[in-house]
């Protein structure tokens, strides 16, 4: 461990630490543009110059390019080094345009900060400024190349770190250009990170263009709830509205980066159609009125038909507060539920994944980056949990062998071996692929829960247990369907699913349903069954912050608060409970009250729209009880009422790991139906953009979803005489749906894969996420 002196302060750092990092450990911030701790050093910008007073290489040196060595003496304040840095900033500013007032980076721009810090204010050079033509890079990222200072951070992130190749660098000398070969939408689902990583305003956030300056935003630490990983974010809100989302560094979860779904998925929170008042039989009423009406009518049904006549349905997108309040609601009233999953098969897989996790086998995403062999079973991280793909990419860059067992046409940004097999064959393939991990020391098994069943999850968990038994530090990493599915698995007490409740509604046992923050309309696979059940109901109460079709159909609709207004605790797929603080206080945003013009000139004691309660408050009110008054009291209440949540007291900046500890997961039906002859198995799979109900409300992400497509194996397509780009109709029992055909050489034969898309209404047609479609019902509508 070398020991060196920086600015007369001594520090001992691990071998291979750069001087710039060693200084940072001492609290000395050396200016930098190109150096980034996730991307490493390239020495492109020359602004981190320091003077080495004693050591192997003396004189002015780039602190990001020299390793800390024993006996080294470094000065960051030496006049020679300071003068060097000042000159570097001055020449970086030669070509930088005079557009800070209209640049969105202004206010949090590294170049701006260092220009001011370097004392540079008047451009002495009188020649012209270099200009570049910009490119259209899609709906998310705005390109303005004039501002570039050639630090290479963007291509290093885009190509090396995230593994996509469509953004690169062209030109030489003073004409270096960062962009695509041809104008077009960036292919990477991590492209939004270019905005965070660019030290100046070349890449800026397009959907939030001009919404505000960094100093005007209320910036709050948040957690992304658009998949189960629980990446850390920074929420920027202004005028009672979320304006921008950025990645927040986390040592354990996501590192520095987030995906574009998490970055741009927040627009549901401020959409004009969002429910903001109570609704009784289509009539707008106050929130309190709706809550009391719901409470009284549910009470009446309970008195007439017994507590078993009321069912409660929740979901994995609610906070732990809401979920535990719902369990409490059912405990006190005797109502059925709450159920947090839609069907038994997917619910059982997710539950099993949560229950299989224990302190020994659980790995965080950052630990996964150090794995030397990864086996992914029925998991498609790019689409299901995108940032996981970034972590796997880092493992692969460090030399890990990655194997995937999956029927889908996987397109991952790193090298891996794809063992394509049908969903039913995953179990066998897993058994035979297990030996690939035998040479590794730190293997990780990644298991998805969307197309697998509980049996496969258990098999993966057993494999990890076996590997650990043979002395390896093996880890299990499961992805779950929703942000707080883990919390649902911890709290669930009723061992049922929404399909069970729907059946009981049809049987006349349940007469009223309270659906709290659940997208039953989108997620429940069998729409005809759901519709039949809804028709039979005497009363449907919906509590939600989204204007889902179910909310529209409900007899009583009660609005609730989004995560940005209510905060909450969310438990990610590795059992890490993370606290989200409210980003703003709620109420109608000024864009709504002012209708785009000046805010209203009237004054009122209350902010309009601030009378909405969080869903957990409503749950307490439905039970006829007073809710805890503050968030802190609510957390304490949860700890005392649920033994499994008692560890919340130990929550710190990294969150706290919660484990189910011997809980029995919901029972599952063992087998999936055999594929009949002359049939192709249609598999509905998650897509990175489209299909996740909340981010579907973001217009910018909908643009990226493209056309609804069906993926076919080449052999299957050839047999039907179908070519890529053709338009085909798939005939379901209840009607035909048309898709564009995509053809893959590396997916399981006999399988059709359809990625969820906001425009496909698959539930009324297919009735399930899997469907056996007869080959003669695949019809070509139009040739490419």
């Amino acid at each position, binding site marked *: 461990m070398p020991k060196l002196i920086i600015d007369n302060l001594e520090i001992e750092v691990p071998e291979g630490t750069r001087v710039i990092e060693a200084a940072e450990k001492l609290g000395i911030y050396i200016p930098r543009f190109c150096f980034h701790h996730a991307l490493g050093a390239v020495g492109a910008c020359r602004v981190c110059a320091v003077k080495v007073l004693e050591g192997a290489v003396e004189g002015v040196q780039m602190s990001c390019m020299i390793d800390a060595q024993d006996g080294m003496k470094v000065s960051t304040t030496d006049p020679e080094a300071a003068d060097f840095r000042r000159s570097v900033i001055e020449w970086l500013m030669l070509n930088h345009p005079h557009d800070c007032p209209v640049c969105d980076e202004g206010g949090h721009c590294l170049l701006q900060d260092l220009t001011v810090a370097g004392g540079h204010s008047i451009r002495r050079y009188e020649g*012209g400024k270099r200009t570049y033509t910009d490119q259209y890079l899609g709906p998310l990222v705005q390109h303005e190349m004039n501002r570039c200072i050639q630090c290479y951070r963007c291509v290093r992130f885009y190509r090396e770190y995230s593994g996509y190749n469509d953004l690169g660098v062209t030109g030489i000398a003073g004409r270096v250009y960062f962009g695509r070969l041809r104008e077009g939408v960036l292919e990477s689902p991590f492209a939004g990170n270019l905005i965070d990583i660019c030290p100046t305003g070349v890449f800026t956030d397009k959907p939030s263009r001009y919404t505000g*300056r960094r100093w005007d935003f209320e910036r709050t630490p948040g957690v992304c709830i658009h998949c189960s990983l629980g990446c850390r974010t920074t929420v920027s809100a202004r005028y009672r509205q979320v304006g921008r989302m950025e990645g927040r560094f986390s040592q354990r979860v996501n590192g520095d980066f987030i995906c574009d779904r998490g970055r741009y998925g927040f627009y549901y929170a401020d959409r004009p159609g969002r429910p903001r008042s109570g609704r009784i039989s289509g009539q707008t009423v106050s929130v309190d009125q709706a809550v009391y009406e719901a409470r009284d009518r549910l009470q009446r049904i309970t008195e007439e038909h017994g507590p078993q006549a009321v069912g409660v349905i929740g979901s994995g997108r609610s906070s732990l507060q809401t979920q535990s309040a719902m369990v409490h609601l059912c405990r006190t009233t005797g109502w059925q539920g709450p159920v947090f999953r839609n069907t038994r098969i997917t619910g059982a897989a997710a539950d099993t994944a949560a229950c299989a996790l224990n302190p020994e086998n659980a790995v965080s995403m950052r630990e996964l980056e150090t794995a030397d062999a990864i086996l992914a079973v029925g998991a498609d991280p790019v689409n299901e949990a995108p940032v996981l793909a970034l972590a796997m990419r880092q493992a692969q860059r460090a030399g890990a062998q990655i194997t995937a067992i999956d029927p889908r046409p996987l397109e991952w940004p790193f090298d891996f071996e794809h063992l394509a097999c049908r969903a039913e064959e995953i179990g066998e393939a897993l058994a035979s692929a297990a030996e690939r991990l035998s040479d590794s020391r730190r293997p990780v098994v990644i298991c998805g829960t969307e197309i697998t069943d509980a049996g496969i999850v258990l098999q993966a968990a057993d494999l990890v247990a076996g590997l650990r038994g043979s002395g390896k530090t093996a880890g299990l990493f499961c992805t779950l369907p929703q942000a707080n599915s883990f919390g649902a698995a911890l709290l669930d007490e009723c061992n049922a699913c929404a399909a069970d409740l729907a059946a009981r509604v049809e049987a006349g046992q349940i007469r009223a349903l309270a659906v709290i923050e659940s997208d039953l309309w989108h997620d429940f696979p069998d729409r005809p069954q759901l519709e039949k059940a809804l028709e039979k109901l005497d009363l449907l109460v919906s509590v939600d912050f989204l204007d889902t079709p179910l909310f529209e159909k409900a007899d009583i609709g009660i609005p609730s608060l989004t995560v940005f207004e209510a905060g909450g605790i969310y438990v990610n797929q590795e059992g890490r409970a993370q606290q989200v603080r409210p980003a703003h206080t709620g109420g109608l945003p000024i864009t709504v009250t002012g209708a785009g013009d000046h805010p209203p000139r009237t004054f009122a004691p209350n902010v309009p729209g601030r009378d909405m309660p969080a869903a957990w408050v409503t749950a307490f009110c439905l039970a006829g009880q007073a809710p805890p008054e503050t968030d802190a009291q609510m957390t304490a209440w949860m700890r005392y009422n649920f033994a499994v949540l008692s560890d919340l007291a130990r929550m710190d900046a990294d969150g706290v790991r919660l484990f189910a500890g011997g809980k029995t997961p919901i029972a599952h039906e063992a087998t999936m139906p055999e594929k009949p002859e002359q049939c192709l198995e249609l598999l509905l799979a998650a897509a990175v953009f489209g299909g996740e109900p909340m981010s579907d409300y973001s217009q910018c992400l909908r643009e990226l979803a493209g056309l609804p497509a069906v993926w076919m194996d080449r052999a299957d397509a050839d047999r039907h005489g179908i070519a890529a780009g053709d338009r085909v109709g798939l005939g379901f029992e209840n009607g035909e749906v048309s898709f564009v055909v995509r053809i893959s050489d590396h997916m399981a034969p006999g399988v059709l894969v359809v990625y969820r898309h906001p425009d496909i209404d698959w539930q009324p047609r297919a009735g399930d996420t899997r469907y056996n479609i007869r080959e003669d019902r695949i019809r070509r509508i139009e040739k490419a």
Partner: protein
Amino acid sequence: MIRAGIDIIASIAAGFYTTGRHLFVRPFTESYPEYKRPLPARSRARIILTRDPEGRERCVACYLCSGVCPVNCISMQAAEDSRGRRYAAWFRINFGRCIYCGLCEQACPTSAIQLTPDFEHIRRDLLDMVFEKQDLLVDHCGKDPDYDFYQHAGVVTGLAGKGDHISENAPVNTRTNMP
């Protein structure tokens, strides 16, 4: 005794003489509001939003004036028009709170916000002191008759293309490696 009496009379006469002399001098009291003295252009009173020499709004809603304002009396929302020009969708100054320090004018990078010598804009209703964008916008350049920010900024706004603004070179051809 007599000498003391003469001194007293002389000093009283001198006083009366000074006073009496002013009976024959023109008064120099400026009786406001009948007479309004022309104030220097740099005087700091009512704030305006000026236009550029072509008559377009100068304000780009960069939030610098609201950021620097020590009493937080300026608020605005930036937006983008169809030609890519950044402008203020709304802009509000609460003159009930303004202390006329002039920091907003100093901070303004486009010479849009300027203080004028017009100090007479007191209203009886406090709400009337809240000026909206249409109340602030004038149709002249104010103290800075020449400056047009977008001629220097280098962003394409429909005013000119890349490389066509003041002191800009033609766009780089990125498809060649010739020196």
